[in-house]
């Protein structure tokens, strides 16, 4: 695969060459190539078990690739994964929240782990909670939250340290329409955010994407395309 023009021009946020990941004998990802420029959104699509979440965890430095070259924000993985810590906002299937702490305590812990000064952290926490409509319940324990409320706090947690790259695995899951709309302010497109978006709603993901990568059930790249062209094709409005 040739280097994409955007990647060459604006600096690649993500560059994959022959990325594969095996779990024992089972192949989760097979020879994936990709270039994503800074500020772009990648929609990562595919059926269940196609390796989308595995790819996201590799990009988040939570899993090691079995083979291939992976570069994220200019850092080679896994060797330079330590340089990436704190630069990635990861929202996975699990909210990464302690159930016996309150929503605010979870965010304060996250802020301290990321070295955000106390004053700045409390301003950010207030602002983000307000933005997601969670200010009123922020001092309740997470164990008493509905799944949707947990997801809202998890979104606050993922972006609290203002990461350069957002890795979002089903960010809308458990959110009601209001929650989805409110969350766009923190994790939606815009403000030059670089995002990798895994979604069960391909049309919505494609609509927000600059690049679409589809994986098949064997973890192989099924299709890689420009977001607009795919959207046009899907709606039957292609040239």
């Amino acid at each position: 695969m040739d280097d994409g023009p955007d990647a060459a021009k604006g600096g690649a946020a993500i560059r994959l060459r022959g990325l594969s990941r095996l779990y024992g004998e089972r192949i989760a990802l097979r020879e994936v190539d990709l270039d994503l420029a800074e500020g772009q959104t990648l929609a990562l699509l595919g059926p269940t078990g196609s390796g989308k979440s595995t790819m996201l965890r590799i990009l988040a430095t939570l899993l090691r690739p079995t083979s291939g070259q992976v570069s994220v924000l200019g850092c080679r993985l896994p060797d330079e994964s330590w340089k990436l810590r704190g630069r990635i906002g990861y929202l996975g299937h699990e909210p990464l929240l302690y159930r016996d702490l309150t929503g605010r305590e979870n965010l304060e812990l996250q802020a301290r782990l990321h070295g955000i000064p106390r004053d700045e952290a409390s301003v950010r926490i207030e602002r983000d909670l307000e933005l997601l409509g969670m200010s009123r319940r922020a001092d309740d324990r997470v164990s008493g939250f509905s799944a949707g409320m947990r997801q809202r706090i998890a979104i606050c947690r993922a972006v609290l340290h203002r990461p350069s790259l957002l890795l979002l695995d089903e960010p809308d899951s458990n959110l009601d329409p209001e929650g989805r709309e409110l969350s766009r302010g923190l994790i939606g497109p815009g403000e030059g955010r670089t995002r990798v978006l895994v979604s069960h709603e391909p049309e919505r993901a494609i609509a927000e994407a600059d690049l679409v990568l589809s994986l098949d059930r064997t973890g192989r790249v099924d299709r890689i395309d420009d977001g607009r062209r795919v959207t046009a094709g899907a709606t039957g409005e292609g040239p």
Partner: protein
Amino acid sequence: MTPSRSAFAALLAKDLRTELRTMRSLPAMVLFAVTTFIIFRYGLDRTTLSGSLAGGVLWTTLLFAGILGINRIFVSELEEGGFDAIRLAPVDRTVLFTSKASALFIYLAVLEAIVVPVFAVFFLPDWSALAPLLPVLAGANLGFSVLGTLISSMAVNSRARDLLVPLLLLPLVVPLMIAVTAASAGLFDAAGPDYDGFGTWLLVVGLYDGIFLLVGYAVFDFLLED
């Protein structure tokens, strides 16, 4: 990187706050220890113990009560995603090791603050051994919490962790148990505390603690890899 001291304080405070709210570990540890003392009291049919028998009863009880806490020390990180949160943060991973070992040290200290007086009431004719016992308790806690944290982090991903922790821990903790029992045996002498060999055994405890602190610091990072 976030300063390790700040991250350490945040993680330790989180663990202590959670334990204070849920009381998942400490009450079970205390209840186990007190029940075991009662069983020893009536099983041995003795109202006073001295020497190595007193040391054996005390340390065996504390060891098995401590295992209850060790089994649970990483469960919240596994079930609530704490491991991933730490791995995503710009924090030296050994901070998690030191914070967990410190939390376990505090749990053991609280356990001992409650159950050692109970042991004294049940078995000791006078309490003169308790003050010199403090450095032995501190040394044992340090070694036990460091080793326990290490073993627990290895076993936490296994479904058989409740079985694995004692299986891995008990052989490794034998030297520590020998040293603390020997150090405290003289303190529980029927004629009053005898300090013969006390310093030597305390040194052995310190050496054990130092070795496992170094081992823990060196290998913990690798234990968090996928």
